[in-house]
């Protein structure tokens, strides 16, 4: 089918690269009539959930051209886990993902304000 790599740049920015197989491309852009031209990228907040494609907390959608294969995206909240999909909208407006990326955990951008009671451990070097 294809694949997508989702890489961290900083607590807000990520880089998505994808490849969609020729077969899928033909099906997407050949036989099917699309309700929107080009590709649609979805960036899902999947923090603390097992993502099944439809249960993300929220998602951000971005239109990309059919020929593009990468995207830099500013994600809304640092410290959350995101997953990206590259897909399209069919003639009924339904979103059909072609490839899904790995999950990407954005690091927190600031120190923790509410600090729990610290835990301590011992390291014996021997």
């Amino acid at each position, binding site marked *: 089918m294809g694949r997508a*790599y989702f890489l961290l740049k900083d607590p807000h920015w990520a880089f998505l*690269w994808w490849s969609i197989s020729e077969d899928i491309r033909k099906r997407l852009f050949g036989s099917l009539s699309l309700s929107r031209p080009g590709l649609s990228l979805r960036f899902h907040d999947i923090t603390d959930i097992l993502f099944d494609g439809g249960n993300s907390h929220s998602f951000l959608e971005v239109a990309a051209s059919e020929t593009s294969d990468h995207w830099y995206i500013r994600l809304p909240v640092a410290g959350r886990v995101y997953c990206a999909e590259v897909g399209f909208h069919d003639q009924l407006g339904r979103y059909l993902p072609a490839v899904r990326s790995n999950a990407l955990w954005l690091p927190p951008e600031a120190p*923790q304000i509410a600090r729990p009671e*610290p835990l301590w*451990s011992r390291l014996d070097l021997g």
Partner: protein
Amino acid sequence: MTSDNGPAPRTYLLLLFNTHQPYVRHPEADHCLEENWLNEAITESYIPLLDRIEGIARDGIRAPLSFVLSPTLLLMLDDNLRRQRYLTYLDERLGFLETEIHRFRGQPDLCRIAHLHRRRIERCRTLFTEMWHGDLLGVFRRLRRAGAITLLPSVGTHAYLPLWNLFPEIVELQVRAGLMWHEHCFGEKPEGFWLPECGYYPGLDVVLARNGVRHCFVDAHGVLNGRPGPVRGTDAPVHTPAGIAVLPRDLTAHRQVWVESEGYPGDPIYLNRWRDASFECDRPTAPPIAHELNRYPCGVRYWSGRESARPYSPEAAYARCVEHARHFVSTLGASRTPADRSDDRPPLIAGLYDTEHFGHWWFEGPMWLDHTLRLLAGGETQVQLVSAREYLAAYPVNQVVQPTTSSWGYQGYSEVWLMGRNHWIYPPLFDGLEWLRRLVGSGAVANARLRAILNRYLRESMLAQASDWAFMMHSEPKQTYAATRIEGHFRNMQKLRAAVDSNSAADALVEHLDRQMPLFSGMDLLAEYRGCLETSLRSNELGIAR
């Protein structure tokens, strides 16, 4: 842990020098400018620093310093081709300095600086050939045995690990290769480990712990933004959930010593490294320093300060160095007191630097270090120099904190190695690694010829994984070489992969590449890779990028 002489320390100081050069080796060319990166580092930083450290040890001063020696640097320092070419490099400069002394025969202020540079290069030549017999690794070994320095390894080919965590088997392989090559060179299993660019991500501690590493270093915000928040800030190490001690970089020690715009190196008394003689001399008198068409920095400079046109004064620079060493030691002692905490443990200040900063970038850096070490040992300060082992043995209990993904690169994360000019390198490398994962995972690597091809494939991939190339592409001047190197490794990988896919021989190609760039000779990287892949699968680490 108390000071040998003088009062109890108010501050502990750890000084670490990260010593790395990208793997550059071109036997096919008579003269390769990129090989000068190592030659410059040896001449301007490694030899001056080792010379000073030997002097300090000879004077009976105990000054425990930590040196990271990256595997690619170890390979080049132990390479006869590079040794021979280094001597040629020195001789070229000595020849050039003869013409410079002649050029300045009517200008005593500049002529004496040319003499200073000639004495400096002659000293390098004497130490390298007559005293150390071309064996810089031997000097590091001797200093380690004498207890003067601690040596730390880094990953195999200086991969910036946060961008490789989609391939945990490669992270594991990079860590293992670094540890194995260190043990091969020094005969000891190290406790500490250096992460290139201080690049850390949660989960990397598991890989390090699994391979016997006990401590590593990250940038300050990696610990400050960690979870839960560190109660001692960056004044003490933290322990990760996997049981690794993580020592945070101290930003004050960083800024004072490293940053030209706000620290000591920018002082206008010091040598202006940006105004190089090769751009000022007459072309016909100075081959091969100034070529007919191009000129390249040769390490000979005459002027002080970025803005001024005053000839350099070694006496004034010496006096300023003494002042800066005193300032460093006194501010470290005074500015850090335990605050807002119930314990009275003195803070640990970790000064983490690139070795090439001392001498190559900051000409007076080795002299500053010499003064600083002597002041620290003089008993007039409450700052005590320690190694990580000494500190962790004295303070074995620390807070459990998971540092966040971070680096010491621009803006603190990955943008230097992942941006518009260099992101093209990752998809083909990832694609090749997925192919390798499928092939090796299927178990179809039984015959010796296939194993030889895949061993070379791994070497080519690891050479391309080095963060150096992406870094060079990020800052333009060396872009051409970096891109050419990456593209060359890609071509080699494609040829090797085609041979595997078509079940044809590639003996001549493998032999040629092994001769050209003999990375980790004798190591069965494929066997290591298989082990790493099995470990990653068993640990269920494939899937989430942090």
